């Protein structure tokens, strides 16, 4: 039921998520932040069951920190995306089974290059310029394809995200009132609620 969507611009990446947590017919929370901050220039939006989302997010974050301290360095987006993919892939034939969550990993490398990656629970990995997870896929891919152009500015990116949110609020059966949007640029991560 989560909607996670995002796009990559000329020098930034945006990932947006809906804030609601529902249990059967009850909406428990509207302001849940489903976009995890991996470090100052990487964010990982995760969609899936609450427990899986939280625990997988924790494991990814802590392993990411551990690798950084062990190697004394910095993992760029490509390395991080492949690392997260390998965590998904190792789990699918393990005793506990796959991690039941999908994700959008986005960020900006130290040289300013933005990237966005689409990951799913079986270990698929694809570098994309715009995409979505969950039900948002059905509603937003067309809109994102239509509005996207190469080298978008940050303001244009935010406008497109606002259009996506409006589309979901108009056409999606499940009312999702609040969306949390995070933008990564070379300067860092900005977050706001729409």
């Amino acid at each position, binding site marked *: 039921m989560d909607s996670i969507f995002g796009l990559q611009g000329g020098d930034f990446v945006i990932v947006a998520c809906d804030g609601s947590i529902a249990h059967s017919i009850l909406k428990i929370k509207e302001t849940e932040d489903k976009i995890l901050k991996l470090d100052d220039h990487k964010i990982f939006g995760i969609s899936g069951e609450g427990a899986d989302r939280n625990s997988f997010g924790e*494991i990814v974050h*802590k*392993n990411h920190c551990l690798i950084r*301290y*062990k190697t004394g360095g910095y993992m760029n987006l490509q390395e991080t995306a492949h690392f997260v993919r390998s965590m998904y892939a190792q789990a699918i034939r393990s005793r506990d089974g796959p991690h039941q969550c999908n994700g959008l990993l986005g960020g900006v490398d130290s040289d300013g290059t933005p990237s966005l990656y689409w990951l799913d629970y079986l270990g698929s990995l694809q570098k994309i310029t715009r995409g979505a997870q969950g039900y948002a896929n059905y509603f937003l891919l067309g809109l994102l394809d239509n509005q996207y152009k190469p080298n978008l500015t940050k303001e244009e990116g935010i406008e497109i995200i606002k259009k996506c949110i409006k589309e979901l609020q108009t056409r999606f059966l499940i009312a999702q009132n609040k969306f949390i949007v995070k933008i990564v640029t070379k300067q860092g991560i900005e977050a706001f609620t729409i």
Partner: protein
Amino acid sequence: MSYDTALTVFSPDGQLFQVEYAMEAVKRGLCCVGVRGKDAIILGVEKKSASRLQDVKTIKKVYQLDHNLCMTFSGLNADARILANQTRLQCQQYKIYYEDDPSVDYIAKFTSQQQQKFTQRGGARPYGISTLIAGFSNNKPKLFQTDPSGACSEWKATSLGKSAKQVKDFLEKHWREGLHEKDALLLTTKALMDVVESGNKNIELCVIRKNECWFLNENEVEELTKITAQLQ
């Protein structure tokens, strides 16, 4: 009968010789210094290059365990790497379980526990290092020392390795409570420069603050050694 060839054998006068010998290995190691200040802890280590062809810049002897926790050592380099990696893993595991940073004394106890395990196991030898672990808990700076026997204690300022006694005497004379970061840094540099041969290229310095660690680069160390030399 010799009581020093097996780890798991006490001598008649109650000593574990292998552990004592491990501490000898530490005493032969290169000097390291830790100084606790009011708002920062300074760790300084001596680096020695095997020959002119070796790039001393790339020898890193202060290990960052977490965003505001660092460790340095005297003794066998390779043992330190293993212990540091185990401790890094433990830091992250603690955070997964408790959603909070581990306190410095937890990490120091963990490290000393790892070292103790190898004083009771047959077929393995103790870690040949004593470590200095520095970080912040409850907004207070803390400096801990562990040794091959598995002992762990907190210190205000200490040193390990070859010229440890000389440096400790110096620190006993000059350390005082509530040193600011800059003063603590100068004190550490001076303590090291007294015992390290040929100055700045062979010193590595790290400042541990409440939320971050600052590893001084080559130029910053050089500047610091110049200032320290002038102050004398």
